[in-house]
């Protein structure tokens, strides 16, 4: 533990105030999202706790009819905005992490295979990656979402929407991982330790997984962090457009979509607080990623 605390990595972390602050913000938001049912003052999806009379309460002000007060106000149905944000962040973060994990596993596997095996396999994988890279990833995610939605049976669509979303964002984002891992694998495969492993007869699968993979992980970690910010924004965009999380499981993007409808009638808080939460989340993950990239780049040391 002390060894870890004194490592180069932690030293640079302790001396980067931006990194510390953004790490704390991300940690706090993740904590709130994970323990949302314990923290949130109300369960926004339990109709028995809702009181329509509480609708459109202003933030920090007692409601005109019931006298109840809500930190961040309520929406048209009297749902506490603070609670819906906590639950929405849960969905946003879950989709973000799961999509990046999916993209990472897919990208690393294809990258390792392309780099280590080479030949026709490599050509096919990397050409596919090149082609996909020419399309903006948000468009790819939208198309995959649309196609997958078409293939799911109608009665399952709302239940499956979150998973379809994860797969769509994940598939739109594997290319970066594959390219970096392939590049690193190409370098590693000619090193002596790999040749030694080949000589003692280890299988290709074991060499890729146990010998090469651990040596290419640090750039992967950097890409994963930056991808997380992109995935969170992609999820919010898709949900905002109405082709993501269903209304029964609103994410931050869905909440912003709902809030946009009240912009003209003056109920700004229904839109404002989810938007600020989304921005804070995306920005701190982004800043953390930027710092990580610099800290893990040996050329900058």
């Amino acid at each position: 533990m002390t060894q870890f605390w004194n490592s180069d990595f932690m030293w640079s972390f302790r001396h980067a105030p931006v990194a510390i602050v953004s790490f704390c913000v991300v940690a706090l938001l993740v904590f709130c999202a994970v323990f949302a049912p314990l923290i949130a003052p109300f369960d926004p999806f339990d109709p028995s706790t809702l009181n329509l009379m509480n609708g459109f309460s202003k933030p920090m002000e007692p409601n005109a009819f019931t006298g109840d007060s809500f930190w961040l106000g309520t929406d048209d149905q009297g749902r506490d905005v603070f609670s819906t944000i906590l639950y929405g962040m849960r969905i946003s973060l879950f989709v973000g992490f799961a999509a990046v994990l999916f993209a990472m596993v897919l990208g690393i596997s294809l990258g390792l295979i392309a780099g280590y095996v080479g030949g026709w396999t490599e050509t096919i994988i990397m050409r596919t990656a090149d082609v996909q890279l020419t399309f903006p990833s948000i468009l790819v995610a939208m198309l995959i979402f649309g196609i997958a939605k078409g293939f799911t049976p109608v009665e399952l669509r709302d239940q499956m929407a979150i998973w379809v979303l994860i797969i769509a964002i994940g598939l739109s984002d594997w290319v970066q991982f594959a390219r970096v891992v392939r590049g690193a694998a190409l370098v590693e495969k000619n090193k002596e330790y790999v040749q030694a492993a080949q000589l003692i007869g280890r299988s290709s699968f074991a060499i890729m997984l146990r010998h090469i993979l651990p040596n290419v992980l640090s750039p992967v970690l950097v890409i994963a962090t930056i991808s997380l910010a992109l995935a969170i924004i992609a999820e919010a965009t898709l949900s905002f457009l109405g082709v993501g999380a269903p209304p029964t499981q609103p994410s931050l993007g869905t909440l912003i979509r709902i809030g946009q409808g009240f912009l003209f009638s003056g109920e700004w808080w229904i839109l404002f607080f989810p938007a600020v939460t989304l921005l804070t989340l995306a920005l701190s993950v982004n800043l953390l990623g930027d710092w990580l990239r610099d800290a893990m780049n040996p050329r900058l040391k």
Partner: protein
Amino acid sequence: MLSFILQRVFQSGIVLLIVGLVAFSMFRFVGDPIDNMLGQERTDADIERLRDQLGLDKPFVVQYYKFLEGAVQGNFGISYRQGRPVSEILVERAPATLELAAVSGFLAISFGVALGVFTAIRRNGIAANVIMTVSLIGVSLPTFLIGILLIYLFSVELGWLPSFGRGETVEVGGWRTGFLTASGLKALILPSITLGLYQMTLIMRLVRSEMLEVLRADYIRFARARGLREKTINFRHALKNTLVPVITVTGLQLGAIIAFAIITETVFQWPGVGLLFINAIQFVDIPVMAAYLMLISVMFVGINLIVDLLYFAIDPRLRADKATV
């Protein structure tokens, strides 16, 4: 040279065939096409006739070929939701998107290049630093939030500009344009800023870094030594030499503008192709989705092919590289 071009064209063709296959399988395997087309009141004879007409009893490859044949001729079938030919809807919607994209592209290029040159020349000035910082924030804001922010400022608070739609439009020779009326022009302002902002920052940063590079070059120093005016040096000598990468990036961004128009059109309820596509996804209107998928792929593959070939024509070094690889 010829083999490189042929190889590129061949690859583009394969990509389009694969995209076509995806579009076709959506069309063929999502739900029952006959169910989707005939609706509730139908007889067995109707079903037989349509099955025969659509060629659903033929082998898969033949059906795929028929589909491609139709697609090349612009025939994508009939929208499940609107009950009209998809091609007709697309032609009707295209002017809105193209006008929006053109204005955004124009804004992005003119402001991007101007601000890029400005921030490069006044590298240490306060204004330049402010612009650079603001541009950073602009890049990290998601597009839809920028749109909402603009609506809040200019439509809700100030009430200057409309927040949705195209305003009044005039039809000129089958092309419905918003350029000719005051309300049409006003309606263009917010959406085109929203759509162009990201590309503008991108172009600005690119021009700035290229300019900084070029301004350090020897021939600029010689131009200074010859006593040329600063203006001549900056615009005639420096800017001209930064344009090649700017043109390529702008070309590639053309596709991105059309793609991001989906988001902008939804925020502003702009009746273009992007909004059509989003609605098609929401209602699983397969023919429209398939047609959009094909169109956008043709566009992206085409743009990339052209940029690749242009590179090849402009930069002789690439030819040598290709020979060794």
